[in-house]
């Protein structure tokens, strides 16, 4: 029972990340009709915003101490973060909270990146085939990856969660069960809560604001909305920026769970596309539901009990589900008629 509970938690946590990426992918596809293979790179860029802020906050004052030498004979450098020197405890607090604080950097930066990407590149491919769109966005993803690798190296760069949520919670003990049976990291719970808030926020934005209403109308019938004198293209550009912000925030907050490296976006992208297909192309609700569903299924498939009679099932479960869904319900779980059916 405890093992099942833990795998559900794992699945929800992982599903949260899938859902956030898939949500952005679906938004872009639903509004602009573009299959954006660079979306994973946006997730990775967000993660590296967190890394960059951490590096910035940890900029050190270097004092060379000629009385001491390194093992290779050069004078020893003594390093102290400027923030600690200037602001004392407040400086230490800022360094400790660098991951959540990075959202302040991620939001404007990713909005800028998203808008620039759409205006500078993607818009030239609206009328091209999906194959062209995939090729150009995939190429862009590789370029972004290589830029990150050239600047940050290939190894993962660990980011610490704030001390207050660095440990793990004994959920079992809290629920009156044996202690140490259900233990779960605080940060993963924070991430799950964060994913729920962002998903809720995006849905609220699309359903409770005039802007969102226009965007949804545009998703259904772009031409008619245009004929009503609304500059739908400008709104769709902002939606692309919004999708980039969601992906970026998802990436930044994921860094304490998975030390980021240049390839992390690609690892998530393929799975997120499967999530979008399973959820139904263009369906925001479907993307979220499929994200959580596939996250949970993947976690269960990794259980030793299941792997003992179905070896390797954890590797193929997501694709297996995708195949079954596409055979039984080609539009995906919540897909709409006419979308991607031409």
């Amino acid at each position: 029972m405890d093992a099942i509970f833990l795998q559900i938690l794992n699945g929800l946590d992982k599903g949260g990340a899938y859902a956030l990426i898939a949500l952005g992918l679906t938004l872009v596809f639903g509004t602009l009709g573009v299959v954006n293979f660079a979306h994973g790179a946006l997730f990775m860029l967000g993660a590296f915003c967190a890394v960059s802020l951490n590096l910035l906050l940890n900029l050190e004052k270097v004092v060379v101490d000629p009385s001491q030498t390194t093992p290779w004979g050069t004078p020893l450098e003594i390093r102290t973060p400027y923030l600690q020197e200037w602001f004392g405890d407040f400086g230490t607090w800022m360094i400790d909270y660098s991951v959540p604080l990075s959202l302040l950097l991620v939001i404007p930066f990713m909005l800028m990146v998203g808008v620039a990407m759409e205006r500078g590149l993607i818009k030239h491919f609206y009328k091209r085939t999906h194959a062209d769109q995939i090729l150009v966005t995939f190429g862009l993803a590789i370029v972004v990856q290589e830029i990150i690798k050239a600047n940050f190296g290939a190894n993962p760069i660990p980011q610490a969660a704030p001390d207050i949520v660095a440990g793990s919670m004994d959920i079992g003990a809290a629920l009156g069960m044996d202690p140490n049976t259900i233990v779960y990291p605080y940060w993963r719970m924070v991430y799950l809560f964060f994913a729920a808030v962002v998903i809720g926020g995006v849905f609220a934005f699309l359903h409770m604001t005039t802007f969102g209403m226009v965007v949804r109308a545009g998703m259904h019938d772009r031409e008619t909305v245009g004929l009503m004198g609304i500059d739908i293209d400008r709104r769709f550009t902002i939606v692309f920026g919004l999708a980039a912000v969601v992906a970026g925030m998802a990436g930044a907050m994921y860094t304490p769970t998975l030390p980021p490296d240049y390839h992390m976006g690609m690892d998530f992208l393929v799975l997120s596309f499967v999530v979008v297909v399973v959820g139904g192309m263009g369906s925001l609700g479907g993307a979220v539901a499929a994200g959580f569903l596939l996250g949970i299924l993947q976690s269960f498939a990794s259980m030793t009990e299941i792997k003992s009679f179905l070896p390797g099932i954890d590797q193929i479960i997501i694709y297996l589900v995708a195949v079954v869904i596409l055979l039984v319900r080609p539009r995906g779980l919540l897909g709409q008629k006419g979308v991607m059916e031409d």
Partner: protein
Amino acid sequence: MSADNNKHGVSRRDFIKTTGGIAVASAMPMFFVKNAWAEGGFPNDPGKAKSITLGFNVPQTGAYADEGADELRAFKLAVKHLNGEGDGGMLNTFKPSSLKGNGVLGKKVEYVTGDTQTKSDAARSSAKRMIEKDGVLMISGGSSSGVAIAVQSLCNEMGVIFMAGLTHSNDTTGKDRRKYGFRHFFNTEMSGAALAPVLEKEMGNDRVAYHLTADYTWGWSQEGSIKKYTEKLGWKTAEAVRTPLGAGDFSQYITPVLNSGADVLVLNHYGKDMVNSLTQAVQFGLRDKQVNGKDFQIVVPLYSRLMAQGAGENVKGIYGSTNWNWSLQDEGSQAFVKSFGQEYGFPPSQAAHTCYVQTLLYANACEVAGTFNPCGVIEALEGFKFDGLGNGPTEYRAEDHQCFKDVLVVRGNMNPTSQFDLLEVVQITPRAQVEYPADMLGGELGPCKA
């Protein structure tokens, strides 16, 4: 075009074009390998040329790119020292040495580089290009056993020496050993033999281990060796779970550990996988856990400083083994750390060390043999005993081309004094304790062809 020609379906022009094309295509490989088996009767014989070329095939992209970059730094430093530039590094401590600092056999050493991408097919293509197009006499490098075994096999087929870089699987000098391949790095069998006594001392005999293992040749090899030696101590193995290479999020593999009854988690992971699995295991509170009345422990059988840097605080107090560490105080290690540190501003990794040493050992074997002929070089390397290269007295065993030397058991440093001071050497396991019979791991070297 005459009607006659059309009757047969092939025109004269078509015939000439086709046969010409076939002739050019057939000549292509000869053009690229024209130097491969030149006058001396062995591949890429430099003859009277003033320089020789070595091929450094390292991962410049992919998961092990940072280790590859460090390997490349070491190779460049070795070439510099062989050509008599710089402070000479380990050339000054290596004994018995025939190296004079004037290149190899009086010829200047040059090099070409390739990118293995940590993929066997890419590594083989790159090595093939170096042999056929660049005329290299020796290939070295690599940060993965899968790649090392693939390139070693290719080099053996093509009659070129392969001085393996970082490869830890038993198979490299076990069942997949080759006449033209040599490994200075230790293997999983030695890791198990070196680690077990320390684990017994620190954790006792009554333990239950849970293995998470990277699902490829090296992971299987390490899991087998660690199980073999820990079970000899009296430990039980609760479960050994294979994880896909590059899984990223290991949470679904870690949560079953919590209630498995195991009190030790063995992470048979390397590189990015190790950084992720260790970080996540610590996040799940495994290190704060008490099971069977004992503190839960994590073991990382193969450690590297570059990985420790990636895992940050999480490595503190965790045991593992390593081929070499820059903090060693012997004369050879100090000379290498000094040269490398002055050149690049930071200490070398174990990957850099083994690559540097392999280059020197190859060059020395050529000097001893008095020829670049691989058969002569192999003869000089087989059974070669040496010292002053950082691991104490060492021998290249003739039967399997595996180096036997002391093995380091390390622990994540609890109080690091710098960003590089991440591993603390807790024991230098003497060579005698990690030696095993040459036929234990199977395999045949095969003959020398030239």
